[in-house]
């Protein structure tokens, strides 16, 4: 079944449509934010639901680092058919996930041409990560940055209770 294709097409359409139709958007820089947070919020809901479908042994992970490693390998493979390429941490609650070839950015030209546009395609995955972490018992803040497509980084900051 060509499931990942359906998701990718749907996601692309969502980015295009939700961006355009935001009724409160205004030309100031702050005006862009509402649509990003809508996409992120949707990703969060889906991430929470996916988190509940993860194998039971995943739900028993108590250590932050184990949970992040699990997301980098198992969640990423389940959702994007590949693992995250690198994980770094300062051992103080901040983690950086490096993906050198992020599937949702692959359809766009590589390099710097679509750097600004890329942010729209990373909002949903940020929410996905945040939602899955939430189900695993961790509250977090997730942001993403793009240096040169299709590589991107996700910054995860675990919030202490």
């Amino acid at each position, binding site marked *: 079944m060509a*499931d990942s294709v359906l998701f990718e*097409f749907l996601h692309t359409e*969502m980015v295009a449509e939700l961006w355009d139709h935001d009724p409160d958007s205004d030309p100031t820089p702050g005006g862009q934010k509402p649509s990003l947070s809508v996409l992120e919020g*949707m990703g969060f809901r889906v991430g929470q639901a996916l988190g509940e479908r993860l194998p039971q042994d995943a739900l028993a992970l108590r250590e932050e680092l184990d949970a992040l490693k699990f997301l980098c390998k198992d*969640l990423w493979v389940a959702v994007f*058919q590949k693992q995250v390429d690198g994980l770094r941490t300062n051992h103080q609650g901040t983690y950086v996930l490096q993906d050198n070839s992020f599937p949702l950015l692959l359809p766009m030209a590589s390099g710097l041409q679509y750097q600004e546009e890329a942010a729209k395609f990373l909002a949903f995955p940020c929410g996905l990560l945040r939602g899955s972490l939430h189900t695993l018992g961790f509250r977090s803040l997730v942001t993403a940055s793009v240096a040169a497509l299709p590589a991107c980084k996700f910054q995860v900051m675990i919030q202490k209770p």
Partner: protein
Amino acid sequence: MSRPASRRPEYHKINKDLFVLTYGALVAQLCKDYEKDEDVNKYLDKMGYGIGTRLVEDFLARSCVRRCHSYSEIADIIAQVAFKMYLGITPTVTCNNSSRNEFSLILDKNPMAEFVEELPAGRSSLCYCNLLCGIIRGALEMVHLPADVTFLQDRLKGDSVTEIGITFLKKQDEKKYRQKK
């Protein structure tokens, strides 16, 4: 972890669920943004149309369907090849009129509504899976087969089955019925 992650069967299900869950989140968001069911339905159809115009390329690349000589063959291909490929189900096809340009796809099971038990309160006219109608319409239009596609029956609205009606709009000569290679 000793077992390769990609081989675990749970991940196959997660991959399938990803689309269905994302779609559910999208519908929920649209219900927040639009008060009227008709507006949500229209929006879903429009998004589906956009997806369909691109999905058809993917479909043709994967399926290598041969030339079709009738609307009824096309309806069969949609049900038996496309639905099977993307949603894992095979709707039954029925022809609704003697001029053979109106068809129905009858779905016993609808994977897109797998996690939906009933429509939200106050949303009784919502066509939850209207994206599907848009997708079919967009895909057909890209192969020069304009059609009207709507839900005729919907399990979520209390009907016994979910039925999608396809009405092909232009009468074509026999030799013009073909799908692009």
